[in-house]
């Protein structure tokens, strides 16, 4: 935070000492503080017990941050000299990210499935080397993942709350940089994992350069990076249109890359497949929540006056994303890759709600484009975390068995795990009485209210296509004979069990009895400007 204050000071024409409302930034401060303490633990604590201490500390930090988010609920103001917005959407998304990070961290801490845990004993050891063999034999693990995750969570909390584009850029990097590293730390299949890390890093850095150049052009257009200032410049039409349009386009590229929307989705399957599965789940859920939050804020608060310009583009991106995600998923033979394409398709469904723009529900006064997306993100996040947690359980001698053919007849080996995975797939497909249905219903009805009916038609068709490949997996699990040398379903420690149970509970609850959360999303749908 200190660095931000310096910039804000220099931005002011009259030199006056700025002030920072620490209490309003408490969720982020707690998470970053825990991350720092985690770094110190890594530095000064012995190996024994470090894993437990880090786990307890991280979970405690996430819970404390969530409590402080609930205490801020209802706030509607701009803090930290204009850098951070504390409003409904920001707090709702921060709460969502923190809630999702809890099962995420629990699955990361799982150590009974694989000796030593999911993560490599030392990221620096060369795969296949003697050094690696010795380290693996000791059963140690890279506990740095906990502080890294907390730094990523901190960036994610700041990303949807950022009220100026510089803060947003810094948050983007703070959330991305730890994720690049986390992707490369798998214990098994380390070459794949490192390759995922390299690809994610190079493409991520490439896209954030576009994002940054977009910021530069918008700054050139309006003379400020504050979203409200840009909105003012747009409404008074005071600058060069070329700068505005190019800047908006480049900014959108960076954000659409992070949400995994087509045509900027190509990193998603590779990275999701190569990364350690708990990281994939965490990343798929939380990054998407944070990035959609930032996308909403940029488009609604900063560029709302330009809606007639970006709306058609978002239509195109939404259609392309839904089609690419659903159709390409049909041909996948790897569970993690299939889930990756499914996450692309879901990015498309969420974009459908987003193009409803600021259509207001006459009954509740909710901004439909925002409230539907908020709800969908919460529902989707828990389904994703749960689904990837189940993937970690199906194992053979080489680690996780992710090839679809290995999942044949899984129900015979473990009816419970097959049933749970079926629930998640049904929720992905949007079957009634699951959270996925409520979410899809919310975004599609928002899109209809926003005069985007053709988009909804395509969305429904693509949901049907997607349902086909989800149910192919269900059929495979329940009605095919298991391969004789097929994988077994491992019994996890309570950590993963709790994570999966939590995800199942939220998925069912938001499907059967969503009113409370829908109301909350409605009430949280107003951006502070």
């Amino acid at each position, binding site marked *: 935070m200190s*660095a931000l204050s*310096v*910039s804000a000071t*220099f*931005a002011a*024409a009259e030199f006056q000492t700025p002030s920072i409302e620490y209490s309003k930034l408490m969720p982020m401060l707690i998470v970053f503080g825990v991350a720092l303490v985690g770094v110190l633990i890594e530095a000064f604590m012995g190996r024994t017990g470090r894993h437990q201490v880090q786990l307890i500390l991280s979970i405690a930090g996430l819970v404390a941050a969530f409590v402080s988010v609930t205490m801020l609920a209802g706030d509607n103001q701009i803090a930290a000299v204009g850098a951070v917005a504390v409003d409904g959407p920001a707090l709702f998304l921060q709460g969502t990210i923190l809630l999702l990070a809890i099962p995420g961290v629990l699955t990361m801490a799982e150590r009974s499935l694989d000796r030593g845990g999911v993560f490599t004993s030392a*990221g*620096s050891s*060369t*795969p*296949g080397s003697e050094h690696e063999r010795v380290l693996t034999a000791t059963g140690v693990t890279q506990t740095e993942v906990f502080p890294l995750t907390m730094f990523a969570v901190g960036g994610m909390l700041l990303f949807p709350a950022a009220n100026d584009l*510089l803060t947003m*850029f*810094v948050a983007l*990097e703070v959330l991305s*940089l730890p994720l*690049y*590293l986390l992707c*490369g730390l798998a214990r098994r299949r*380390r*070459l*794949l994992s*490192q*390759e*995922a*890390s*390299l*690809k994610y*890093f*190079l493409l991520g*850095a*490439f896209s954030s*350069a*576009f994002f*940054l*150049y977009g*910021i*530069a*052009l918008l*700054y*050139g257009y309006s*003379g*400020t*990076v504050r979203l409200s200032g840009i909105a003012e410049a747009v409404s008074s039409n005071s600058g060069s249109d070329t700068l505005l349009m190019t800047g908006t386009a480049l900014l959108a590229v960076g954000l659409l890359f992070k949400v995994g929307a087509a045509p900027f989705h190509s990193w998603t*399957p*590779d990275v999701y*497949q*190569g990364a350690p599965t708990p990281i994939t789940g965490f990343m798929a859920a939380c990054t998407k929540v944070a990035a959609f939050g930032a996308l909403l804020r940029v488009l609604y608060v900063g560029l709302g006056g330009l809606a007639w310009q970006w709306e058609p583009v978002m239509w195109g991106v939404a259609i392309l994303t839904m089609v690419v995600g659903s159709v390409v998923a049909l041909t996948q033979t790897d569970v993690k890759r299939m889930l990756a394409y499914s996450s692309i398709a879901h990015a498309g469904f969420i974009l459908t709600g987003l193009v409803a723009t600021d259509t207001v529900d006459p009954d509740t006064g909710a901004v439909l484009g925002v409230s539907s997306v908020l709800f969908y993100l919460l529902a989707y996040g828990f389904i994703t975390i749960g689904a990837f947690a189940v993937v970690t359980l199906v194992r053979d001698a080489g680690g996780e068995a992710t090839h679809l053919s290995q999942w044949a007849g899984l129900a015979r080996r473990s009816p419970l795990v097959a049933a749970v995975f079926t629930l998640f797939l049904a929720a992905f497909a949007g079957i009634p009485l699951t959270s996925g249905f409520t979410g899809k219903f919310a975004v599609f009805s928002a899109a209809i209210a926003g005069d985007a009916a053709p988009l909804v038609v395509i969305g429904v068709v693509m949901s049907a296509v997607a349902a086909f490949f989800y149910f192919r997996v269900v059929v495979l699990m329940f009605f095919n004979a298991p391969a004789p040398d097929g994988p077994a379903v491992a019994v996890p420690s309570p950590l993963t069990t709790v994570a999966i149970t939590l995800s199942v509970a939220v998925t069912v609850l938001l499907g059967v009895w969503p009113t409370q959360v829908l109301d909350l999303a409605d009430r949280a749908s107003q951006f502070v400007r």
Partner: protein
Amino acid sequence: MNPMNYVYLSALLFSIGAAGVLLRRNAIVVFMCVELMLNATNLAFVAFARMQGNLDGQVIAFFVMVVAAAEVVIGLAIIVTIFRTRRSASVDSANLLKY
């Protein structure tokens, strides 16, 4: 001199960087091209700060420098690790993940 010329220069540098990312095969060079893009952005920020008559752009350039340095460190760490495994930093040899 018209500060807009610096913006054009920055756009040119940015495009060279972007083209480099897409065309070059060595991960280190790809990565250097990304850094070129970031530095082109810095030039644009400073030029715009001059045109707009406020200091925001110059301060932002500081932040970008720090972020770029952090990115260098992460990127080098990843690339060096991969190089030690494969004895090659070519992005073409990173081809295990597909389809």
